[in-house]
C-alpha cells in the first residue's frame, strides 16, 4: 500500500507519493476550476511518474483549500495539520513554520512529536500573500524570479505603507514615475519588506520559536526569504521543494493511516 498526499491549493495542486523509504514521486499542476479534476490530474501525474496504477493500492489523503469536498481521497485533513507533519518529516528540529501560498499565509507551531500546536492565518486581506506578489510582479512587468534576483541588489528600500493590495499598487506606480525614479531594486525590496513585516506580525502573535521553516510557493522566492531572515535575525530552513510540503504532510498522514490499518 502506497501513501499519496494531494494538496489542492488555490493556484497549484500538488501530489506526493511515499513508500516506506521516502518520496517516490511528486507532481505540481495548475489548479483548474474543478477541485475534483485538479486533484485527479495531479494524482494521475504522480502515479505515472511512480509507474503505478490507481488500483495498485494507494491510500489518498487530501488537503488544502479545495481538499475537503473531493471524492477521490479516502480521508481529508486540514492544511495546518498536514503542514506540521510535512515540516516535521523534513526538519525534525523545526518548531515553527511559515507557509506562504497564493492566497493565504499560515504560521504554525509544531510540537516535538511533529503535531500541530498552534496556528494563525492571514485573513480577510490579501496584503502579505503570494497573489499580492504576483500582482506586483505584473505591475513591475517582470517575472517572479527576476524580481527576486533583483531584490538582492537593493541598497535602499522604498516605503510601501499601504496594507491594501490595490493601494500598494498605486504607491508602486508613484515610485516608478517619481523624478528621479526610485531604483527598481529598492521598490522590489520595499514590496518584499511590506509582505515580510506582515508575516512577522503573524509569527509574533503566537510567539517566534526556533527553528523556523518556510514553505509554500513563496518560499521559492529567494529575495523575500533573505529579507525575512534579515528581519528575524537568524537563518530559516527552506526545503528543496517548498511547494510540496503540505502534500508531503498529507502523504505522511496517509502512511500513518495505513499503519493503523485503516483502509479506504
Amino acid at each position, binding site marked *: 500500500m502506497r501513501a499519496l498526499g494531494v494538496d489542492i491549493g*488555490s493556484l497549484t495542486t500538488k501530489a506526493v507519493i511515499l513508500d516506506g523509504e521516502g518520496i517516490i514521486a511528486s507532481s505540481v499542476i495548475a489548479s483548474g*476550476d*474543478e*477541485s475534483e479534476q485538479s486533484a485527479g490530474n495531479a494524482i494521475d501525474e504522480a502515479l505515472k511518474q511512480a509507474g503505478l496504477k490507481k488500483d495498485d493500492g494507494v491510500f489518498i489523503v487530501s488537503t488544502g483549500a479545495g481538499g475537503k469536498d473531493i471524492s477521490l481521497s479516502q480521508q481529508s485533513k486540514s492544511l495546518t495539520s498536514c503542514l506540521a507533519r510535512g515540516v516535521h518529516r523534513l526538519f525534525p528540529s523545526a518548531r515553527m513554520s511559515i507557509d506562504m501560498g497564493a*492566497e493565504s499565509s499560515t504560521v504554525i507551531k509544531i510540537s516535538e512529536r511533529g503535531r500541530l500546536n498552534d496556528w494563525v492565518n492571514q485573513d*480577510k*486581506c*490579501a496584503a502579505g*500573500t503570494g*497573489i*499580492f506578489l504576483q*500582482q506586483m510582479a505584473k505591475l513591475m512587468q517582470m517575472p517572479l524570479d527576476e524580481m527576486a534576483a533583483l531584490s538582492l541588489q537593493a541598497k535602499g528600500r522604498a516605503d510601501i505603507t499601504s*496594507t*491594501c*493590495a*490595490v*493601494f500598494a499598487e*498605486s504607491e508602486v*506606480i508613484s515610485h*516608478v*514615475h517619481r523624478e528621479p525614479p526610485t531604483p527598481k531594486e529598492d521598490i522590489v525590496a520595499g514590496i518584499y519588506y511590506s509582505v515580510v513585516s506582515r508575516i512577522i506580525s503573524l509569527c509574533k502573535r503566537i510567539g517566534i520559536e526556533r527553528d523556523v521553516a518556510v514553505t509554500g510557493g513563496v518560499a521559492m522566492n529567494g529575495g523575500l526569504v533573505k529579507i525575512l531572515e534579515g528581519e528575524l535575525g537568524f537563518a530559516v530552513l527552506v526545503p528543496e521543494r517548498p511547494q510540496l510540503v503540505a502534500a508531503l504532510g498529507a502523504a505522511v498522514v496517509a502512511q500513518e493511516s495505513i499503519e493503523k490499518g485503516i483502509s479506504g
Partner: protein
Amino acid sequence: MIVAGIDIGSRAAKAVVMNNGAIVSSVTCDTGPESVKTSQMTIARALEGTGLALDDMEYVVATGYGRVLVPFANENISEISCHARGITWYFPEVRTILDMGGQDCKAINCDAEGRVNNFIMNDKCAGGTGRFLEMIADVLNIPLEKIGEAALRSKQAIPFNTICAVFAKSEAIAYLRKGVSKEDILAGLNEAIATRCLNLLKRVSIEKEFTITGGIAKNQGMVAQLREKVGLEPLLSEDPQIIGALGAALFAEDRCRGKAAAVPAKVQYGYSDGTGNYFITIDTGRCDGCGECVPACPSGIFEVAADDNGQLKARVKEDARKKLALLCPGYEVCLSKLGRNCHTVCPREAINHTW
C-alpha cells in the same frame, strides 16, 4: 471665455472644455502611469476637432488624484468640491452625492450652489471600488461595460463575506467553480458594495435629492442595488463619470469671472533703492473698493478703479508709483501725526507697507 476642467483619476482621466457656459467637448481616457503625460494626452483628445488649442484656454482647473501634476493647470481643486460643483450643472436640487471612482468612494452633502457641507471617504481598503469591479469583470470574463446589465439579470444574489478586492476575486472564482452563475455573483458583490456605501452615506446624512457620480454610476447593476438600499431614486446625469471634470471647468469659469481670486491676489507698487524697500501691497482679494483709503491719505496716493473683471479695487496712482518714498513718510509717521492712516481706515486690512 474658454476654459477647461481636467480630472486625473486613479483609473480614468477626464476633461471638459467649456465656452461661455456651454460644454464644447468632453472625453474620458485611461489613466497612464505618468500623470503629466496622461494630462497632456487627455486635454489634446478633448480639443481634437474643436478647432481650439491649449493656449486658447483662459483658465484650467485640475482635480482628481493626479491634480497636482497637471503642468498646464492654473489651479487645483479637490475632487470633492468639483463633484459637488459639477452636479449643480445638471441638478441644482441635489443634496446628497455618492461619488464612486476607481480607488475610493466618497459621500458628500452639499447645498444648492454646490458648496460642500460635509463629506466622508473610505480608506485603508480598496474593497468595493472601481478597481475592484474591474478585477471581477476580468475574472468573470465580461467586458466592464456589460457587468451592470449582467447583474440585473440575476435571480438570486449570493452573499459575499469579504470585501478585500483581491480575496473577493478568489471567492468569485470559487463560486464560478461551483457553477454559480456570473450574474448572481455580480449581484452579490454589488449588494456587498452597496451596503458599504450606505454606511458611508449615513455618516454624512442622507437628504433628498440624491445622485451617484463617478465611473461606477455607469454600472446599472450597482445603481439598482443602491436605489434599493438607499431607498431613494438617484438622479443620474448622462455621463456621470465626467462630473468631476465638469465641476473643475465650472470653477475655471468662476475664476475667469473673478468671482473669487484663485490665489489671494496681491498687487505690489513701488521700488527699492539704496535707502531701502518701498512697496505698498494691496490685497485685492480683500479690498472691496470702499474707497476709505483715498481721503485718508494726506498725500492722496490712492484711487479706486475697476479692474479687468470690472470690480472696483483700490490702487496706487500711476504717477505716484515711482516716487512713493517721497510722497509717503511711512504709515507709522502718519499714524502718530494724524491719528489715523490708510491701514487704520481700511475696514478689510488690505493695505501693507514695507517701510
